């Protein structure tokens, strides 16, 4: 442990410390929010450096948990906190941090409630990092639930006029998930009488009814986070009501926690009692995918289209993970890497367009015509999002869909249909923004993104292209 220098703990704690610094930072008219912003950005960049350091210490060929850190929290009752990382969670960590950087850049000039935004964003980052590094059921549960608090606060602060109803739904669905997972955690704790490592959950033997209840609880709690029918409604409402790009990115990381939970808890061989739920999950998942893709296709709200795209991909990943194939799991991990960056990038550019549009009171048609830099970035991100060979999504999608087709042909074909619809929705939206026939310079033009922004986005594009050139780089040669 000492050789690891508590690296994982530091990675969890650093954003929390950053949050404390942000709380203490001077935020008056003179500083204009720069202190708060710079401290937040620096915190995330520093954490990325630590994550890269962590990567250098990982054995990328091993699928086992590495750099394990173990702490005794309570002696009686005995509760141990175990942290660990594998390639999959390391990739997720890196992509989440990169998505945060994009989010921070997107809200650089946003002075409305800036301090609160940064405080809760960093708190969330700390908690989701802890969640991804948690290796025991207890800390997993704590982080899983704790990250809802900053999200709840962010929705409350940055939601639109319907926010009370949205917060109510958010609370309702997630409370349900929290309660059932809490019960499952108590059962697990009761059986083991101490720390239960997640990887060992399946080795515990329960009686029939308890086992049924436990797996149902685990599935429901994770599904409440994934936009799967009927749980999709709260995320749909939140996504279309949030106009702040950073908050949008954070909210749309919540389903990731559900998917990650499924990955961690669902073993290579499902217990017999879980088989029924898995089949039901597949059916509901694929129906939801098609359902939301269809709604996204006809909806004219860009945020809803993004939500639809995000949902289709999350469910595809979830279905891919149910195939229990190590290669697919790694592909999902690496696909997440590109996917989260693309989603964050898209939200960045679309929020920029939206803010300019609202400022100048323009329609959406033809907005991208006079802004070549923004149009290039937007187009590239959409092309990457629909899975063209400009990011690792292309090859990852190919392997995931092949795996789905192998397991269930009809399911795979339905997933492809949903992908086509969600891609069509994104392209339709892009070409509405590029509609030169509706562009009227006399009404006013939006301003193009500044050169530093453009260079930053070019760097993001470069990262995506690099992920295409070496899609499975982490596996080594």
């Amino acid at each position, binding site marked *: 442990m000492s050789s690891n220098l508590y690296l994982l703990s530091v990675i969890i704690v650093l954003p929390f410390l950053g949050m404390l610094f942000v709380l203490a930072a001077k935020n008056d008219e003179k500083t204009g929010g720069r202190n708060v912003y710079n401290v937040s950005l620096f915190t995330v960049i520093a954490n990325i450096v630590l994550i890269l350091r962590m990567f250098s210490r990982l054995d990328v060929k091993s699928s086992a948990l590495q750099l394990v850190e173990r702490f005794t929290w309570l002696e009686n009752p005995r509760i141990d906190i175990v942290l660990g990382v594998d390639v999959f969670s390391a990739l997720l960590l890196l992509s989440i941090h990169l998505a945060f950087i994009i989010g921070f850049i997107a809200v650089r000039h946003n002075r409305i409630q800036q301090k609160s935004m940064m405080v809760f964003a960093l708190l969330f980052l700390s908690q989701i990092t802890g969640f991804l590094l948690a290796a025991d059921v207890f800390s997993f549960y704590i982080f899983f639930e704790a990250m809802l608090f900053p999200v709840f606060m962010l929705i409350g602060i940055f939601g639109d006029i319907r926010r009370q109803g949205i917060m109510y739904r958010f609370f*309702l669905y997630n409370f349900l998930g929290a309660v059932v997972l809490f019960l499952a955690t108590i059962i697990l704790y009761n059986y083991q009488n101490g720390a239960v490592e997640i990887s060992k959950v399946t080795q515990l033997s329960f009686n029939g009814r308890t086992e049924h209840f436990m797996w149902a609880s685990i599935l429901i709690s994770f599904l409440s986070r994934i936009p799967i029918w009927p749980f999709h409604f709260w995320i749909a409402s939140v996504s279309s009501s949030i106009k702040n790009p950073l908050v949008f990115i954070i909210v749309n990381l919540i389903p990731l926690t559900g998917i990650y939970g499924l990955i961690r808890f669902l073993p290579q061989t499902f217990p017999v009692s879980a088989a029924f739920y898995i089949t039901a999950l597949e059916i509901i998942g694929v129906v939801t995918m098609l359902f939301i893709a269809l709604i996204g296709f006809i909806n004219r709200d860009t945020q809803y289209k993004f939500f639809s795209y995000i949902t289709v991909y999350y469910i595809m990943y979830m279905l891919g993970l149910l195939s229990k194939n190590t290669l697919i799991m790694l592909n999902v991990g690496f696909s997440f890497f590109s996917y989260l960056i693309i989603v964050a990038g898209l939200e960045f550019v679309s929020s920029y367009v939206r803010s300019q549009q609202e400022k100048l009171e323009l329609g959406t048609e033809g907005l991208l015509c006079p802004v070549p830099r923004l149009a290039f970035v937007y187009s590239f991100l959409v092309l990457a999002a629909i899975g*063209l*060979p*400009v990011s690792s999504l292309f090859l990852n999608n*190919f392997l995931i869909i092949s795996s789905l087709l192998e397991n269930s042909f009809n399911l795979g074909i339905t997933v492809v249909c949903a992908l*086509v619809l969600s891609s069509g929705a994104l392209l339709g939206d892009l070409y509405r923004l590029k509609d030169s*026939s509706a562009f009227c310079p006399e009404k006013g033009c939006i301003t193009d993104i500044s050169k530093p922004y453009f260079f930053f986005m070019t760097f993001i594009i470069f990262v995506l292209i690099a992920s295409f050139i070496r899609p499975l780089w982490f596996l080594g040669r």
Partner: protein
Amino acid sequence: MTNNMLVNLFILLSLTGGAAFFLPKDKYSRFFSLLVFAGAVSYGWLIWQAYLSGSSEPFVFHWIQYKSLHIDINLSANQRNYLYLMPLGIVLLFSLFCNIFSRQEIRRLRLGGLMCVNLAFLLLLICTNNLIILMISAFLTSITTLYIINDYESKKTYIVYDLISDMALFTAFAIIYSQFHQVELSVLTKYAREGEHIPLVASLILLSLLIKNGLFLFHNQLLSFRDLNFNRLVFLSFSSLPVVGILIYEKVMPLLSAFEYGRLVIAVTAGLSAVYALGGTLIYDDIKEKTLCFNMLFWAFLYALALTVPHFSFSAYFSLFLLMLALNGLIHALSAAASDEIYVSKTGGFFKNLWLLFLFFVLWFAIFAQNTLSLDYSQAGARVVIVLFVSFMALALAHFLREVFFGATQADEIVSARLKALPYADCWLPAVLICGWSVFPFPEVSRTAVMAFAVFLLLLAIHPLRRLSRYYADEELQLAEFFKRFYELVVLTPITVLGRILWLTIDFVIIERTIINSLSDMIKFLIKVSQKIHQPALINYILLALCGLGILFLYTGR
């Protein structure tokens, strides 16, 4: 740089394309375009030399090596690959040359760069022997095509068709991979023998190819190129999706031949496309649209011919391919000579000023007839296809030439006054050079070719379809987009209606109004009950005490 000429070419084309983006947009753009052209000529010369020397250099880059997933990028230099590259190289040179002088082109450097990059991706497609690289090169060509199209409406039409085409190919290959876990092209033969869902996979691939080639039912995207300038239009017709389609067709033939209805689908689509294209060449007023219909006619006949030979090879039709390119060049020259006039109805009587260009057209047909009729038509089917192709071309071209070069002029005064004996060299010179190259070495002139030429001259003289010119004024026919409306009605409307119904019924009525509101009401009710119970009244004390006792009895079992 390596010893492998194709690898070098790939790198050079990519670098040239990349460099063109970073050069100043407006300043010295002609000069830089000339440099790009000169660079392309030198690459072409090297390829030609390598082809003649018959050198063969293997080059395989192991891109992904992981357990069951091995993907190699094969850029082995051999005569077959050189041969396939040559006509595409000529298309590139043709377009780069036109690009230097084009008056209509605003972003010539960017276009030149995209053309070079496009050829680099086609190079990958030609050399590949695995499904993934095939898909990647095809999709990357789709992206360069998207950027070459600089008209909004064309782009919008193109992107929809292209998305469907690419996703169809992607799904088909994913199904194949899911069954055999192999990515080499040889797996297609295995799949054709042992695979499941062959009809679906073959249909998906066919759908993708027919869209890429812009054949009947999917011709909207090809015809939408009419809004581009001539140079872009020509380049896209001969170095973009149609070529990708035919190259993929050649590679996936083992699989398509296993699909019992494959031949029928291709035959019917090719037949309908030929008829539609013939109709288009006769009826459309827009010269660019006519040109695209000529190209559509060519691709349709190529597919029809592919059905008649046991082993289709695109290389057997390269001279025909280049001749069609030359025809495009000549039509471009005609339009340029008439101050970029694009409507046939506003031409007529151009022979006096453009007799030399007319002569080139006539000579073009003579060479075309000789080349086409000297193709191998030992199979009865091939004979019918070739004769039909030459007949259709003769009919369409004679009609077109007669309308433009003879009769009373309909051109406005400015166009008539500016009518040049020959336009800028960039419009006609490359086309004439290609025609000249096609006749070397002089073949023995066949009797059938002479007969075809005689028929062509006869058609030109009697102008049998002159009545069709009245349709030029029919705006409904000229502007109507029947197929766009058809797809909107058959595909988009049901999707929209279904989406709206789902959205309103399931999202709003069932979830929002029923589930969430019911839960909300239930919680409100429970809160109310709880508040009432906790009010200080004797009945509430008794009620609470009874509840407590009830729970106690329930759990203790007494």
